[in-house]
């Protein structure tokens, strides 16, 4: 009998193991493994200038003065340089509304020049990109230049600010089409497809790079075969190229000019770090990987004088001050200081340097002021949060919008956060588009609507 016991135990154990393996678990178990992502969406149609149309409207240019000619204004610094005096208080129902306009979903901000407002828009119903010219007086459309392009909604479609000069209007589309028009008539000068012509890759959430127009040239960062290029604004021909030897990808940051020891240069924050090229010929002067954000670089570097560059980002990147110094025949870059994201950062909006202090919206949504040594001077506190909204400074006043269209005006001073007025001016969500201020008129937007407000001081 005893010799059967081991065999019996083996049989019982096998039966128990088999039943345990075959039985359904009391709690359903599902493997959390990568799922299939097979794209079965239809192929996209061809886009571009070949099928473009110039459509006249009923608007007329305004005689109102003032200009905001590109991303972050005429000096690309987030500051208004008008001499128009701005009101330090608003009526109970907010600043006077001059006009309001529906737009396609997006975050594209306006540029203003010669009584015209320019907006890069997208018409979802007809699937066309539209570069719109509006009257600064009433928002009525003067003309629109439209070309077909299939752009699927992905947190909106449009997200760049055009650059406008006397003879050129340059717009950067969500899928990296760069279009140059006559700013008065809307006639096409040239168009580049950076994906097709320069090997660019459209960034996640579409391109947010705003073109730089200066000295008859357009400076772009294709980040394909070339890191940066300069093209002739008259004909779109390439003037110089900076080879993309590090194979950086395009981010949502924009090219910004910087004076470096008396030399004109251009800065760009790509996927792998920051690059600086000579403005005259595109020679790469230096690169650094001291500042790179793996998910998305959105805020543009801020030149802070004396070879300093202030950088801030989201995704736990925090903020840092980089110092560029001569190093033999070239340049060296070191980190002067760095701040944790709880102290300072910039998820989406580029901070503003004003009177030796930096103003920006931190990842927790609070407005904050830093000095150039990285010391936090003040924050607006948790009761005044601005989410991912835009800001600008003019006449010593700081205007900041929150996600839901509440516009705040405070003093741009380093000693304390001093709120002067608040008004609900937009009624949708995602009021993130960069604002423009020209001739005492402020243009802001939410996801689907633009508003033009009169913020000038009353005579």
């Amino acid at each position, binding site marked *: 009998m005893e010799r059967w016991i081991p065999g019996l135990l083996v049989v019982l154990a096998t039966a128990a193991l088999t039943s345990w393996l075959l039985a359904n678990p009391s709690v359903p178990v599902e493997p*959390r*493994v*990568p*799922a*299939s*992502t*097979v*794209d*079965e*969406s239809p192929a996209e149609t061809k886009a571009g200038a070949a099928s473009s149309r110039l459509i006249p409207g009923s608007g007329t240019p305004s005689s109102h003065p003032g200009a905001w000619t590109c991303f972050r204004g005429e000096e690309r610094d987030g500051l208004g340089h008008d001499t128009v005096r701005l009101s330090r208080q608003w009526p109970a129902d907010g600043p006077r509304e001059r006009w309001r306009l529906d737009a396609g979903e997006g975050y594209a901000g306006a540029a203003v020049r010669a009584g015209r407002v320019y907006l890069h828009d997208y018409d979802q119903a007809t699937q066309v990109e539209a570069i719109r010219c509006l009257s600064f007086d009433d928002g009525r459309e003067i003309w629109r230049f439209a070309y077909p392009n299939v752009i*699927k*909604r*992905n*947190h*909106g479609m449009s997200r760049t600010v055009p650059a406008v000069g006397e003879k050129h209007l340059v717009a950067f589309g969500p899928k990296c089409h760069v279009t140059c028009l006559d700013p008065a008539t809307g006639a096409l000068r040239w168009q580049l497809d950076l994906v097709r012509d320069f090997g660019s890759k459209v960034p*996640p*959430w579409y391109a947010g790079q705003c073109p730089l127009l200066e000295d008859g040239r357009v400076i772009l960062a294709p980040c394909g075969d070339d890191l940066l290029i300069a093209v002739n604004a008259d004909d779109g021909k390439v003037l110089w190229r900076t080879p993309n030897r590090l194979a950086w990808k395009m981010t949502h940051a924009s090219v910004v000019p910087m004076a470096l020891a008396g030399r004109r240069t251009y800065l760009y924050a790509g996927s792998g770090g920051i690059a600086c090229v000579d403005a005259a010929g595109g020679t790469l002067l230096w690169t650094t990987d001291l500042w790179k954000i*793996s*998910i*998305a670089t959105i805020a543009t570097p801020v030149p802070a004088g004396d070879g300093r560059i202030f950088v801030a980002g*989201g*995704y*736990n990147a925090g903020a840092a001050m980089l110092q560029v110094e001569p190093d033999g025949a070239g340049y060296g870059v070191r980190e002067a200081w760095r701040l944790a994201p709880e102290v300072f950062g910039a*998820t*989406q909006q580029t901070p503003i340097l004003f009177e030796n202090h930096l103003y920006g919206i931190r*990842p*927790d949504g609070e407005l904050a002021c830093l000095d150039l040594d990285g010391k936090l001077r003040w924050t607006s506190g*948790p009761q005044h949060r601005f*989410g*991912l909204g835009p800001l600008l400074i003019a006449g010593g006043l700081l205007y900041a919008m929150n*996600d*839901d269209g509440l516009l705040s005006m405070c003093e741009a001073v380093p000693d304390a956060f001093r709120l002067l007025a608040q008004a*609900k001016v937009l*009624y*949708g*969500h*995602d009021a993130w588009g960069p604002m423009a201020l020209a001739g005492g008129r402020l243009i802001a937007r939410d996801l689907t609507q633009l508003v033009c407000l009169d913020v000038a001081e009353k005579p």
Partner: protein
Amino acid sequence: MADAHQHAPESPASGGAGPSRRDFLRQSLRGAAFLALGGAAGFLASRTARAGNIWQIDPYLCVQCGKCATHCVLNPSAVKCVHAYEMCGYCELCTAFFEPDPNGLNTGAENQLCPTGAIVRTFVEDPYFEYRITEDLCIGCAKCVKGCTAFGNGSMHLQVRHDRCLNCNECSIAVACPAGAFKRVPANRPYLMKGKRSEP
């Protein structure tokens, strides 16, 4: 002084002074109708008064501190993540779903921010993915809300789910909330959802 009765027209059916049988019936029916109407109004008023106000989170004040998961008298919490789909970008790289710096943009457990795997990510078409909350698994920790708000537009946000909330007189989460985001709202409008356009 003349008596008013002397001028009243006499009903042909009355056969004398006082209300007729038909008048009596008419007045009785009218009285019954008034009584029914008053009763219905009283019933509705009592229901409204009984419902009163209940607790809800203002998503624009919420700071995603995580206390909703730990301070509710229920376990798991009656606070759940809800999703305003009209605001969502359906992103491939969703900062509510993925850990910062994920190994890959896929549903591998190591890439997911949600500690309970309560968010279901489904491929729609390039480049879109839908993110759906499994409420039974959600513990209201707000990790996804924080991720969504930090870079996106906060289409994912917390709400007290009234199919399970006990509506305590003194909500223990409201006491602990550092942002004052818990509000009393009318019971017939129990949610403060994001995504709707407000009126000028």
